[in-house]
């Protein structure tokens, strides 16, 4: 029996769903624990930052890092864990692309601060109190981390070896990654640990789909047929441009793909490619009309294009997040 590997799990700006995804491996986690010791995992274990700082460099074999970088504490931990780990995996959509909280890059910090601490209808704050990075309490000084202006995926801050996509990653993909690690079978550095094919290529609803989109509808306007391709029902589905391997979980819940696995390798910019994909399926009967005013009118029926096409990828997208002053 070879020596046990040493693992770490950390969360930065995240929701905790990635930790739950690890627990959702259920009894298979017991197999993982036979082959690896977990040294650091704040959700489940009492290891403190000081204990991690005391580890020799490259002490952990693999660190699974979920969450994006939103403040100075998270950036420090990213650097610390990079230094203490041989392999760093960006685990889940937040670390990979910024995910839904990356939509915060559409707004200014001051705008958000003002809203949360003074404008919300339930807030009573006549003195305009706000949390302070360096605060004073009667007994001394207390500090909070410095908040950054933007949400950043992990690889904007440190070198990342692998990416596990999804919000949260699907259990079979986590287990595939574990197997690859234990068998010394990891692909080349920088790889996304998931299939390269688009969701449409594996979707059960795609069997007979003619890929025609007659109109653009919102999900509350129709009762979607659970057997028919969403695009054919007029519902925007990110399946054509989104990496598969998720197990069609949303589709099984009768909800269109919203893109959490990120773009396939050939797609590049997920949102841009989806807009062109839509242009080609909308009223596809009339080939001449693809770039015509009718198609444009239908495309304009897609409400909130940024939130629709870049729901998970805005913080990592090629488009500018918001107008800079």
């Amino acid at each position, binding site marked *: 029996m070879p020596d046990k590997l040493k693992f770490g799990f950390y969360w930065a700006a995240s*929701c*905790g*769903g990635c*930790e*739950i995804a690890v627990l*959702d491996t*259920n*009894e298979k*986690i017991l197999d993982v624990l036979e082959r690896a010791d977990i040294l650091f995992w*704040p*959700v*489940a*274990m*009492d*290891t*403190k*930052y000081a204990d991690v700082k005391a580890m020799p460099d490259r002490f952990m074999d693999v660190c699974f890092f979920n969450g994006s970088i*939103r*403040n100075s*504490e998270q950036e420090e931990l990213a650097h610390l864990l990079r230094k203490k780990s041989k392999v760093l995996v960006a685990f889940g959509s937040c670390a990979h692309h910024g995910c*839904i*909280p990356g*939509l*915060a890059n*559409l*707004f200014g*910090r*001051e*705008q958000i*601060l003002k809203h*949360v*601490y003074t404008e*919300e*209808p*339930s*807030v*009573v*704050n006549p003195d305009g*109190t706000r*949390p*302070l990075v360096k605060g004073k309490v*009667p*007994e001394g000084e*207390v500090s*909070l*981390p410095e*908040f950054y*202006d933007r949400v950043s995926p992990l690889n904007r801050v440190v070198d990342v070896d692998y990416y596990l996509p999804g919000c*949260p990653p699907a259990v079979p993909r986590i287990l595939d990654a574990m197997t690859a690690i234990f068998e010394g079978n990891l692909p080349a550095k920088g790889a996304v640990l998931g299939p390269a094919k688009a969701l449409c290529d594996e979707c059960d609803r795609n069997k007979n789909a003619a890929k025609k989109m007659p109109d653009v509808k*919102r*999900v*509350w306007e129709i009762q*979607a047929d659970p057997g028919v391709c969403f695009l054919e029902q007029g519902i925007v589905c990110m399946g054509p441009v989104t990496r598969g391997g998720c197990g069609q*979980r949303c589709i099984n*819940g*009768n*909800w269109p793909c*919203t893109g959490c696995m990120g773009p396939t390798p050939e797609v590049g910019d997920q949102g841009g490619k989806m807009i062109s994909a839509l242009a080609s399926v909308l009223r596809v009967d009339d080939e001449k009309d693809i770039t015509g005013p009718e198609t444009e009118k239908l495309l304009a029926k897609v409400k*909130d294009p940024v*939130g629709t096409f870049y729901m998970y990828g805005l913080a990592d997208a090629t488009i500018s997040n918001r107008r800079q002053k």
Partner: protein
Amino acid sequence: MSTRITIDPITRLEGHGKIEIFLDDKGEVENAYLQVPELRGFEQFCVGRKAEDMPQLTSRICGVCPVAHHYAATKALDAAFGVQPTETARKLRELIYHGYIIYDHILHFYFLGGPDFVVGPDAPKEKRNILGVIEKVGMETAREVIKHRAYGQRITEILGGKPTHPVSGVPGGQTKALSEEGRKEIETMARSCVDFAKFTLQLFEDVVLKNPAYMALIQNPKLGLAVYNMGMVDEQNRVSFYDGPVRVTDQQGKEFARFNGSDYLDYIAEHVLDWSYVKATYLKAIGYKGLVDGPDSGLYRVGPLGRLNAADGMATPGADAAYRKLFATFGAKPVNSTLAYHWARLVELLYAAERALELATDPGITGTDIRNMKFDMKPEGVGVVEAARGTLFHHYRLTEDRMIESVNLIVATTNNNGPICMSVREAAKELIHKGKVSDGLLNMVEMFFRAYDPCMACASHVLGRPTVVIDIRRRDGELVRQLAS
């Protein structure tokens, strides 16, 4: 001169936090602060999004309690679309919701808070976790724990597509009906969860209630809080997770208020603390008087103990018996002991399992009338549910074309923030003397936030930055210079 002890990060909870304990020159605790260092910003970036995306967007506030946010959002949309879900849809929502409570309460007892009791509060830190629990209770029981937590998740997956971040809630109903095959699977799982909840209550009795050292901690009056209690109830004032009016009781257990969620702004308000990113809520009629308890302080507790205190019983027989046993043991109502949260949570685990079984065997649960699409559009809507850790409010204003105009969220851990900070302070004062601390002692301080099962990811859904910074950028956006106050 005062010295300080820092616990960073606090562990075995959902999200981030640290504790600063200040000691005076005799080594006695002057004060302790639980700070939440994280923020994200959902209330702002949801503005401009499609209303129907809110159940998905806000579920990313918390991956531990996504179902709570998902359905608080869905109920806010029901209100804003002026529509009631069909009877089948309502039952399906309740079923998924009780599956979620099963999973979340098992997670807390066995993985997060319970190891302190099962393994021991001052056991070596390498053992104070699920692995230590497995060692202690044996592999056979460990497999039962893993199986039943998974059952809770599986119920969400069957009904909601994804176990974490489900997709089933739409205004007026559900996206998906339940097949007979799925129903049978859920019935089998729910039946097994009822037995497992009873087993867990028995385990709590054997390990905790029969241990005099633990009971001394639980019954120490200095380690409790006399604050108001809040929770959702049904028409007979029994604990209700998915729907019902919000009830508040006072320090004597008398009803102080009973209101519809949509009127929340008349009853609660939020106070901003300058040393934490999380605000503290209080009862508007009493006011914010600082981090103190008693009838003149507007602080209240939510979550399992808050709910049990604010209710008159449980709606299923086994859970109701467990409820009565808890209050009989303490001989008082409300129960103020912070560590009693663990017991209250297990009473609720049994209720959630029993209720899930009732719903799974309801002949109407496999109906296909899952959507009511007769909308009567309104400009705003409030949705309230009981998250595993307490009352959760979502409030949206919508534009005419059903886009989000503004969002206000008051989450369970914000409701509990004042009491959690107080409990940590009182525990530090009671447990630390003459400057003597050990890993085990500091862990016992942590036990007093852990009991609440706080979710800092939820509480830090807001985002901000406390200093004024002026960015000077070139026209292409590159930062040239930054001026900070």
